[in-house]
């Protein structure tokens, strides 16, 4: 290997390492941001959401992680224009930032059986 090639290789390693370190730093920052998210795990089954009463803070990002325990359900939170199909075996992640305080209803909007119309809950946003 001649001198030019050694210099080029050294530069490539240095640049690559720098980029890698930069990427790791950014990932770390992203991880730190995610720590601020309010993660709420919700179980959907016939005919209830557990929990059905959820409280989150205004202005703080929220992740709703919703999983069905039996069959196809829906999740609709109209006040924040959110909805998702909840299929068995798939955890749906819904991200949003609650920008208003109050109590807001959510419901299953996929007709799922005799008790479908009772399958609802309340999101309370405080602060």
């Amino acid at each position, binding site marked *: 290997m001649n001198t030019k090639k050694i210099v080029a290789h050294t530069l490539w390693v240095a640049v690559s390492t720098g980029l890698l370190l930069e990427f790791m730093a950014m990932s770390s920052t992203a991880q730190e941001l995610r720590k601020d998210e309010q993660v709420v795990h919700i179980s959907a089954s016939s005919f209830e959401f557990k929990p059905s009463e959820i409280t989150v803070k205004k202005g703080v990002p929220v992740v709703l992680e919703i999983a069905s325990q039996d069959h*196809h359900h829906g999740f*609709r939170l109209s006040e924040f224009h959110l909805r998702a199909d909840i299929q068995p075996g798939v955890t749906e992640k819904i991200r949003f930032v609650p920008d208003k305080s109050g109590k807001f209803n959510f419901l299953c909007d996929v*007709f799922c059986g005799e008790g479908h119309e009772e399958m609802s809950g309340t999101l309370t946003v405080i602060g």
Partner: protein
Amino acid sequence: MTDLMKNDLMQRRDLLKLAGMGVAVFVSGTTIHAIGASQKRNDSFYFVQLSDTHWGFSGPNINPDSQGTLKKAVAAVNGLDEQPDFVVFTGDLTQTTDDRKVRRDRMAEFRDIVGQLKVKTVRFMPGEHDASLDRGEAYQEFFGDLHYTFDHNGVHFIALDNVSDPTAAVGEKQLQWLQADLKQMKNDARIVVLTHRPLFDLAPDWDWATRDGDAVIDTLLQHPNVTVMYGHIHQEHHHMTGHIAHHAARSLMWALPEPGSVPKKAQIPWNASEPYKGLGFRNIEAEVTEARYKIEELSVGGRL
């Protein structure tokens, strides 16, 4: 309360005020007219809409006469001075059940009861209670197609299914069928759409919407004379989307509160001092030339 709800409330108050004055209520395009009692015209006919009978429901606090209300309404229709040209049931014929056999038993019982109607032509449509759990399989065994059209004395009727898909969608296939059907119609055709759920977002939080209802309404807006009659919300309600009027009918099992009037939707309990309050059916007189529809709300017993 949203602007839409305020607007609906105003329209409803206007209609109630008119009804209280003992005049007939006509609905045509964007205007509501009140006129005195009129003779049936040569270019008119009338039909009866019954809805949300929920046969099989049991709840003494909600309707202690759950076994008798539908039968009373059938007797009331049979007792009308002049029999309608036809009767249409706009969905939720039966109360939903997870049991396939019970579902069919309820449908058979319902069919036997309404078989007592004197009127020969009776049209049926599914509600989510009838059709959402099996995509309309049992319903079709008893009552036929989930969506269809028919013509009567110059009016083209379109029965749209927004319930057999449990996500409350009409679906792309049916939408294409609707577009193809409308393409055959003259632009000024008199069109009445019969459906179960509201096609517009009346109260999505209460499941009072059709997921792809906007696409249906956009299609219907291409025609100037379209009126929608529906059920699902268990109360009289009137709303405009552009030039299309949407009219919801009462239930024959329980009443529900006005959209957005309470935090959570719940059946209105039975009031022993005012039995059957909020329940009933309606006569609809079609004036074909003017594309106007006179809606007359009747109690379970057939009184104004």
